[in-house]
């Protein structure tokens, strides 16, 4: 197995296979097949191995079909004689050669050292300690992503809604811009930009920790520990991290699927992530929970979280058996690399590049949606009543769809439509419509458009709320704080006039499950293309409708309504 220098190195694949390689190379001449930029021997081997990528390329070349037919005959001949596919035989020979070289040139110590990696693995993948360590790591990251980012988030938001909006208004006034243009720029575009930027602090921190997990080597241990659990849903161990993050916000969670190697697994994870009840949905649960279920509000809220998880498991099983069947790329062949200290520079680059991509791609979707929302709310130009705007008309037109679910009025329809922008807006829209009149100093259209500016503000509230969820993970801490519980707002009084406990429960189920917010869909579209974003929107809305229908009509049958 010595290789003379200067001689072109050629690995011998053994007499039978070598004869087939030679005969296929001769066939190239015979058929007058021009191998182009590929070396002849290399191409012959790849064709015999039936390398899918090379087959596709050769197919497109002149006389390619004939060459492939010859290669197939050759490969079948080999298989009948040696009982193995060509690519396995070549792999054997290559590894055989490598082993020979290694044996000649490398001396390994006879006794295996117990490395630092082994010692860490003895803890993090330990039979009893493995799972607790994993959950502790997840808990800490979840808390940090949500809590640490929130002050930055407040700041970003205050900047956009405060000074920048004011300055722009003043500037436009100076330029004598027409009022519609001022409204479009300030309430539509600036609000939209704000809606994009509020995600940035959280994303930066998330990517920092994901890069840390990935580069240190812990990510593959997490996948190792969680794989059995995730397999129930047809997923890979690595899918667990995006799922956990989904309880905070689905947008970074969709991006977190990038750590998964197989595209099929990534898509399935992204389709299930929005079913994890994100922090933006909590204000809706809290308002309705307190208005209708009093002391049992906490139970109702936890039921929502549980329902999201159950529906995700069912949806995962259905997708795995229908449009997302496991492929070979999902086979679990996972390397557990030695632990390494992550390089700060690489972590920072990772962080910045991923966030920048979010701003560019998903940002465009969010911005476009807020401009469309502005148009719907303000046209025909000069509407004073939300009901007369296109927004009101659209809401009225779709509301009959919700009648079988127990909330077929235009107000709820409108709240659900605006909830597409961000789910916490469901509450603020309802309070605009039901209680809005009380707010006398502001005229109706401004109040409504301010609501859109409130996308950012609502998100901040949501983050604060999500810290409460995190706190509630510690047993004994109550989800709904005492002040909130005693607070019977004007909104809850109004809500009780328009909803029964049963239709309220049905609405909560619908809000939990229906179409992911526009930012999430933007992220899915960017990562997997429009058709998967549409799939996500459609399946969740259909599932939401069916689930709310079952709750409302089932409740009626049981005499609860």
């Amino acid at each position, binding site marked *: 197995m010595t290789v003379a220098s200067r001689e072109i190195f050629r690995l011998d694949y053994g007499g039978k296979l070598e004869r087939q390689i030679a005969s296929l190379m001769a066939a190239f001449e015979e058929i007058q097949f021009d191998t182009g930029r590929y070396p002849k021997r290399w191409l012959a081997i790849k064709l015999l191995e*039936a390398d899918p990528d090379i087959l596709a390329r050769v197919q497109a070349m002149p006389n390619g079909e004939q060459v492939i037919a010859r290669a197939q005959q050759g490969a079948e001949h080999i298989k009948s004689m040696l009982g193995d*596919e060509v*690519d*396995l035989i070549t*792999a*054997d020979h290559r*590894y*055989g050669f490598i082993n020979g070289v290694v044996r000649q040139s490398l001396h390994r110590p006879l*006794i*295996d050292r*117990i490395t630092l990696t*082994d010692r860490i*693995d003895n803890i993090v*993948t*330990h*039979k*009893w300690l*493995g*799972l607790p360590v994993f959950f502790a790591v997840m808990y800490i990251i979840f808390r940090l992503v949500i809590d640490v980012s929130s002050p930055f988030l407040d700041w970003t938001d205050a900047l956009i809604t405060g000074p920048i909006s004011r300055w722009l208004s003043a500037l436009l006034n100076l330029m004598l811009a027409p009022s519609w243009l001022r409204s479009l720029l300030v309430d539509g575009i600036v609000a939209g930009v704000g809606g994009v930027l509020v995600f940035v602090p959280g994303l930066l921190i998330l990517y920092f920790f994901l890069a840390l997990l990935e580069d240190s080597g812990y990510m*593959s241990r997490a*996948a*190792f*520990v969680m*794989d*059995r*659990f995730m*397999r129930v849903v047809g997923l890979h161990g690595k899918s667990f991290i995006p799922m956990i993050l989904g309880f905070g916000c689905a947008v970074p969670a969709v991006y977190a699927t990038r750590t998964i190697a197989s595209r099929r697994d990534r898509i399935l994870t992204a389709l299930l992530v929005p079913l994890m009840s994100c922090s933006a949905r909590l204000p809706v649960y809290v308002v309705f929970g307190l208005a209708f279920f009093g002391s049992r509000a906490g139970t109702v809220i936890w039921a929502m979280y549980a329902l999201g998880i159950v529906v995700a498991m069912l949806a995962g099983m259905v997708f795995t058996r229908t449009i997302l069947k496991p492929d*070979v790329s999902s*086979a*679990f*062949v*996972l*390397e*557990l*690399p030695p632990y390494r200290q992550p390089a700060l520079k690489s972590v920072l680059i990772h962080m910045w590049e991923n966030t920048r991509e979010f701003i560019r791609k998903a940002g465009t979707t969010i911005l476009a949606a807020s401009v469309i929302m502005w148009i719907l709310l303000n046209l025909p130009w000069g509407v004073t009543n939300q009901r007369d705007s296109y927004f009101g008309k659209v809401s009225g037109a779709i509301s009959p769809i919700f009648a079988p679910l127990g909330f077929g009025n235009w107000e709820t329809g409108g709240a659900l439509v605006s909830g597409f922008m961000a789910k916490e807006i469901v509450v603020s829209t309802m309070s605009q419509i039901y209680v809005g009149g009380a707010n006398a100093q502001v005229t109706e259209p401004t109040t409504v458009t301010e609501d859109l500016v409130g996308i950012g503000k609502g998100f901040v509230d949501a983050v604060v709320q999500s810290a409460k969820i995190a706190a509630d993970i510690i047993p004994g801490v109550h989800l709904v704080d005492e002040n909130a519980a005693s607070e019977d707002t004007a909104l809850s009084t109004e809500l009780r006039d328009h909803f029964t406990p049963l239709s309220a429960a049905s609405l909560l189920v619908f809000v939990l499950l229906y179409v992911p917010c526009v930012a999430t869909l933007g992220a899915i579209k960017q990562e997997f293309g429009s058709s998967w974003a549409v799939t996500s929107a459609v399946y969740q809305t259909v599932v939401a409708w069916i689930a709310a229908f079952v709750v409302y009509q089932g409740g009626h049958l049981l005499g609860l309504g």
Partner: protein
Amino acid sequence: MTEPTQLHLLRPGQKATITRIGGNTALRRRFAEMGIVRGETILIERHAPLGDPVEYFIKGYHLALRKEEAAQIEVLLLGVDHHG
């Protein structure tokens, strides 16, 4: 000499030589890419906390496989490695 057995049936600490690789072409190709070929020695390291997948040591690196996939690999037991 012991009888050939399937990789997923072995216990942590056991060492074996790979004798045959089954499964579909794509899986076998994937195995070959990861250095799982005939004649290679493989050490069973540990089970994941929920029993599956299993960590192996082969060619100087650590690799995790699900039992379902490890069942496609036929091995010959070499005896127990006592180092740890």
